[in-house]
């Protein structure tokens, strides 16, 4: 009974489907061609009554594999949530009637479109299995937080508050990290709404940094175990069953198991010794913003003293963007985002102590992020801090004072000012391990120059932080400037290592407030990951998906493409050099499946066959019918919803198009393309997400991998003696509503121009 497949089909005639299409004909296609004899119609399948109709069949043991021919698979998901059976859905509403004009002249082709979607759904369902959790791991609620700074401490505290035990590993001998020496912090509080400009009475002021309070809270928490002077010397496993070796300076190593990991190692202050033009290192009276905090903390509200001779500082200049936003060698090309408000705060230290102290902030673009930022800027202005738009070129020590040479960018003149003390607003360097793909970059470099540059990067790579025993390297992959790769808008904390989340300045430069918010977000994601892993369910974006990849060992050639191309480094190799999939590391994108040249990788509910059989099921009119067939493989994250929305917006689609959703363009097997061409399709459109550095691919590299594989599809076309225009790959965003439909219509026009495929048998 358990293994016996019982098929059932349900055709909805609501939402205009019954009026626009011949339901009898649909039923006949389903029973005769789709071979699903148990086929029912309902006028509103998503209603309680309609759902009951299906439920009763399932409960009676009459349906283990069902086809629902109604709306898009993205619609009515709550109603049609039958997790105990295999289900495919024929998209008759968004996919057909809403995209097609009414009228007798269109009726024939529109009906044929619907018939085909029925055929496709019937073909798909035959190859679907109900996914079952792997049972690979149980629930492990304990989290590992790496980094003892504000970000890491927040992460630990948030996890503990949610009832999840934490091990907090700090490299240093005390908690607080890079901000441990802060005298005060930039305010978190913005002015009340409607506080007028200029005559403000309650603008935000520098605040107590709150670090001691955090440390005390951590020490008091029974759920948090702190490891000081600690390094993670090995991390293995997967979400739900990570094992990490925590080694302390004293020589001891403990191995602990974790459900998920947060990397919150913050940043390292920029090395100001690379700024000789500002006399750093030549006189102690030029300090960095980090060093000034120590001076202020030592002064503890008293007058700030000059390091050289202990004289009270009567004038101070802040040089913004010191060694930043510059392409000079050794400088940081980016804006660190926290230094402007930091300098405002530090200038206010001087003003609070002595309102007569000349404090000048030399800025180019003053950037004050956050709700409090602009208010705090005004607060500094109210305190009579002078803000001069100017670019400093040089600091010279002369006669017991410093001369700051700068160009006044408003008055457009070279000028200079005297100061007792100069503060350099230096930036953040991400505190991360080596880029796991640095070696790959050396291997892949096309020119000697590139190779040399890549090699150099590899040489100066920092020591590992996580020491992952993953096949794809020891640490989190990076995107730009050493920051950890994560999609900064759509899924900011997700990294390319499932279950390991990046929080704070390791993913982009930021101030303390943002780092705290980041830590909260990343910790919640880590908790989700541990819980999902225990259920055997996928993480973002296929949350709840219980399927996972498996392979036919006897067919595997050990080519390693899957282990190399997995964007998440999920696949290791076992002792016999076969792939080892680590289910809970997997995001279910199917990039491995698309990579496999021998087609042995599959998911229970997504495989070479589930898509391949749909392609074959489409009725193929002959060459002289003037009815071409265009296959569109559309990414389910952006392109497919864009097409659904095109339907809602009343866009029109060629009746010759047959759209198949795919998990990611990365999952597309070249065999689908070859088979489709061989069976007479006239054009193929592939629609995936943007794939460059500003990628929108939900699987980071899937779309890029697909583009690379498909770059060779031209050869296949030439071998078949077909025009290269017949296969085209596009980047489509979810907002490309008109364009998504237009691209397919363009292919229809192209086919009309170049003619039908001769491969129709």
């Amino acid at each position, binding site marked *: 009974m358990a293994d016996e497949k019982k098929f059932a089909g349900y055709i909805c005639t609501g939402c205009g489907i019954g009026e626009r299409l011949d339901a009898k004909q649909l039923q006949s296609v389903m029973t005769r061609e789709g071979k699903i004899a148990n086929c029912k119609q309902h006028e509103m399948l998503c209603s309680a009554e309609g759902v009951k109709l299906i439920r009763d069949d399932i409960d009676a043991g009459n349906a283990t594999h069902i086809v629902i021919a109604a709306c898009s698979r993205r619609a009515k998901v709550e109603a049609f949530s039958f997790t105990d059976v295999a289900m495919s859905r024929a998209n008759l509403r968004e996919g057909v009637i809403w995209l097609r004009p009414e009228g007798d002249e269109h009726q024939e082709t529109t009906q044929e479109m619907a018939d085909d979607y029925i055929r496709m759904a019937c073909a798909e369902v035959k190859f679907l299995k109900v996914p079952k959790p792997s049972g690979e791991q149980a629930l492990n609620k304990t989290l590992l937080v790496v980094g003892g700074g504000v970000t890491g401490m927040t992460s630990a505290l948030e996890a503990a508050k949610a009832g999840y035990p934490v091990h907090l590993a700090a490299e240093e001998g005390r908690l607080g990290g890079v901000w441990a020496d802060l005298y005060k912090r930039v305010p978190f509080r913005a002015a009340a709404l409607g506080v*007028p*400009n*200029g005559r403000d009475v309650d603008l935000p002021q520098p605040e107590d940094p709150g670090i001691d309070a955090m440390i005390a809270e951590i020490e008091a928490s029974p759920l948090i175990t702190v490891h000081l002077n600690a390094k993670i010397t090995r991390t293995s496993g997967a979400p739900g069953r990570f094992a990490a070796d925590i080694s302390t300076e004293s020589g001891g190593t403990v191995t602990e198991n974790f459900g998920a990991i947060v990397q919150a190692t913050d940043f390292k202050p920029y090395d100001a010794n690379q700024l000789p033009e500002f006399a750093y290192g030549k006189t102690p009276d030029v300090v960095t913003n980090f060093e000034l905090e120590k001076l202020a903390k030592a002064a503890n509200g008293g007058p700030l003293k000059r390091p050289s001779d202990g004289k009270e500082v009567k004038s101070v200049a802040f040089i913004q963007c010191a060694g930043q936003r510059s392409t000079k060698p050794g400088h940081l090309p980016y804006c660190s985002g926290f230094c402007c408000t930091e300098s405002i705060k530090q200038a206010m230290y001087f003003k609070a102590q002595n309102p007569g102290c000349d404090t000048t902030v030399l800025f180019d673009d*003053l950037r004050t992020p956050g709700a409090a930022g602009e208010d705090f*800027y*005004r607060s500094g*202005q*109210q305190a*009579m801090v*002078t*803000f*001069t*738009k100017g670019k400093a070129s040089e600091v010279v020590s002369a006669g017991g004072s410093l001369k700051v040479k700068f160009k*006044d960018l*408003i*008055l457009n003149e070279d*000028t200079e000012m005297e100061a007792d003390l100069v503060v350099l607003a230096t930036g953040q360097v991400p505190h991360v391990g080596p880029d796991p793909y640095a070696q790959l970059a050396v291997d892949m470099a096309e020119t000697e120059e590139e190779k040399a540059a890549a090699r150099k990067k590899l040489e100066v790579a920092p020591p590992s932080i996580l020491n992952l025993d993953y096949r794809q390297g020891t640490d989190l992959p990076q995107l730009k400037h050493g920051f950890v790769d994560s999609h900064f808008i759509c899924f900011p904390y997700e990294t390319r290592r499932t279950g390991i989340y990046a929080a704070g300045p390791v993913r982009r430069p930021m101030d303390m407030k943002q780092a705290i918010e980041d830590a909260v977000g990343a910790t919640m994601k880590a908790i989700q990951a541990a819980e999902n892993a225990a259920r055997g369910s996928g993480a973002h974006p296929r949350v709840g998906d219980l399927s996972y990849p498996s392979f036919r060992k006897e067919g595997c050639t050990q080519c390693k493409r899957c282990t190399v191309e997995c964007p998440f480094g999920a696949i290791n190799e076992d002792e016999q050099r076969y792939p080892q999939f680590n289910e809970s590391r997997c995001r279910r994108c199917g990039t491995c499946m698309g990579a496999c040249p021998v087609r042995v990788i599959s998911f229970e509910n997504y495989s070479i066959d589930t898509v391949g059989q749909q392609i074959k099921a489409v009725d193929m009119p002959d060459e002289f019918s003037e009815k071409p067939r265009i296959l569109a493989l559309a990414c389910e994250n952006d392109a497919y919803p864009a097409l659904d929305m095109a339907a809602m917006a009343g866009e029109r689609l060629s009746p010759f198009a047959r759209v198949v959703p795919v998990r990611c363009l990365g999952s597309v097997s070249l065999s689908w393309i070859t088979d489709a061409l061989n069976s007479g399709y006239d054009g193929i459109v592939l629609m995936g997400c943007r794939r460059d550095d500003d990628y929108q691919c939900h699987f980071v590299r899937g779309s890029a991998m697909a583009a690379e594989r498909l770059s060779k599809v031209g050869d296949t076309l030439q071998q078949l003696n077909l025009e290269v225009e017949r296969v085209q790959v596009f980047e489509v965003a979810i907002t490309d509503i008109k364009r998504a439909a237009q691209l397919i219509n363009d292919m229809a026009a192209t086919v009309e121009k170049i003619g039908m495929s001769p491969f129709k048998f």
Partner: protein
Amino acid sequence: MSTNQAMVEKYRNNFLKEVEANVEEGEWVKMCMQCGVCSGSCPLGKFWDHPPQEIFMMIRAGKRDEVLTSSSMWMCTSCYNCIVRCPRELPITHIMHGLAHYAKRLGLVPQNQPTAKFAQLFWDNLMKKGRVNELKLGMALYFMNGFGEGVKVAMKNQKLGMNMMKTGRMNPMEILGGHAVKDLGGFHKVMKKAQELEDARIAKHGA
């Protein structure tokens, strides 16, 4: 010691503080964030030696003489474009008027600045009778740079004057007296008192 010198002594090198204490709405100068929207919005912007954004920067940079002797503020037509566009809501028009007035008080206005002269004539005219006598103001304007120059300007504007008269929008009899408030004594007493209070307020700051 002139008032000007007294102020230089008093505020030394802190012109921003001097402006805060002595210029109408001057306490707003420090709040400028140097975006330049005011300069780009001024209809006569191209005629300013230093547009407002620059004036604010110069005040902070302590360029006292350059600011106060500039003809820039006198280019303000009071169109209020800068005020409504300033993202920091600075009353820029009023600050420019305030700086102009302060420069005049200290005797630093450039020689023959036409708007400075006209503005003074206007004030003097209205203070006499409580209402402006357009004809006398016009005549004074023509002759503000001397008799010979005045005749030339008057000739140039002769046709305009004739047009205004023909359409009843200028009355030659105004020269003999013209409109006035009835309680002229009361008006003058009020304005005298206001001036005294203003002077006392100024004296508190040293000028």
